[in-house]
């Protein structure tokens, strides 16, 4: 089983979730993160002093999938999350050794 993590722009969450639902991915865990990369932050003003906000809000989606689905899932994410502008984000794939569903105790592929 593989873990797919995607760092995307916040307003793309809805689209990506819907696209993934269409290909049958219906479990995922999402969190708000801050990103630092080529896309630069904006400058803000406070009582006459300007300063730069470095970190940009991003969404991190994590889903554990069966190894054979990885390519389809990443392709789906890339398509749904792309705006073509800098800061669209990245996808990271890594290995997961074991999964357990707490409610039932099922493990591995059955627990996805």
């Amino acid at each position, binding site marked *: 089983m593989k873990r797919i993590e995607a760092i995307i722009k*916040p*307003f793309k*969450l809805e689209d990506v979730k819907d696209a993934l639902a269409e290909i049958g991915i219906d479990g995922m865990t*999402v969190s*708000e993160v801050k990103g630092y990369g080529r896309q630069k932050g*904006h*400058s*803000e*003003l*406070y009582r006459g002093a*300007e300063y730069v906000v470095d970190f940009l*809000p991003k*969404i991190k989606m994590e889903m554990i999938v069966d190894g054979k689905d990885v390519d389809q899932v990443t392709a789906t994410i890339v398509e749904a999350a792309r705006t073509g502008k800098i800061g669209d984000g990245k996808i990271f794939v890594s290995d997961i050794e074991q999964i357990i569903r707490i409610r039932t105790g099922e493990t591995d592929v059955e627990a996805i």
Partner: protein
Amino acid sequence: MLEADFKYVIDTFFTLFSMVLIIFMVPGFAMLEAGLVRTKNVTSVLTINVMIYAVASLAFLLIGFDLAFGSWENDSMSIWAAFMFQMAFVGKTINIMSGGVSERVRIFPLAIFAVIMGGIIYPTVVNVSWGADMIAGTFLDLNMYDLAGSTVIHSTGGWALLAAILIMGARRGRYKNGKVRVIPASNIPLVVLGAFLLWIGWFGFNGGSVGSISSVQNADLVAKTIMNTNTAGLAGALIAGFIMYMRYKLFDITMILNGALGGLVAVTAGPDLYDMYTPILIGMIAGSLVVFAVPLFDKLQLDDPVGALSVHLVNGVWGTLAVGIFVDSISFMDQLKGVVVVAVFAFSVSFVVLFVINKITRFRAEDDAQLEGMDVNECGVEAYPEFKRAI
């Protein structure tokens, strides 16, 4: 001491008291709207409220008051108190309008509009309704009874808002493929605080509009006006809560408060004329109108984040007509004529002015700016920079 002097002193004091209550509506509108919009647009909405107060009040001081009342004279109380009382009203019409176009409107063109509204449009409406009356004798001459402005303030603001929504369009992403995306309020305590500051301000708004408290009869009139004002608010809240509970088994506080405000708007035209039970009826109808109007405007894709059309426009009209319905001595047709003449004037003039300003410097922020939030783009100051935004 002369009786006239006594009255002068008391009515000056009373007018200052009423004015102070109305000024509480400035933070009232600000908190209400700041609570209703998304966190990324809160600073911008607050800045608009502050700038409107500053810009429209100064415009009214420099030109509007003269235009509305013809002169700086007053025998029955200090002219400065009379001025402050009138000045406290002027921002309201613009607040009503600005609230309804929040989350997309740019501040600079809105400030320009505030100058014109506070300096010219609103004073003209006052002139023909309450003031010097430049159309007296013409076929447009109004005999509408409108104690504290169901039409003069609330509908005027509402018509200006309707014009503004038509020109600026809905918020980015609000209507997608004919479906409405719900955008919930971000801070309910602020909404409640704002609504109650408005409610309390209304006591000064309507009570002060009686114009004098310095005789037994006027004292009764003022007290009854305040009581009836309050009663209509209570009834509006109650009925809105009741309808929501019947339908959803849930008490939607934002709707309950809009119901209360609707009741307050509706009673404003004639709180001094009603007996103590009529405002219950007026408020209940007002609250029901709000509950049905809010989704209706959404169906028409008139995107109004704070419900100002339902509260101020619909109930401004309803309240003005209600005086003609419930009070024998008032002609329904006079009320209707007032509603229509002000509607035509306020809508068309606002539309033209907004349209012209919009050509010069567009009102609506770009989609990208709306996405990032008006705060960063218009003010450079986030409202809650240390609070983590949830998904």
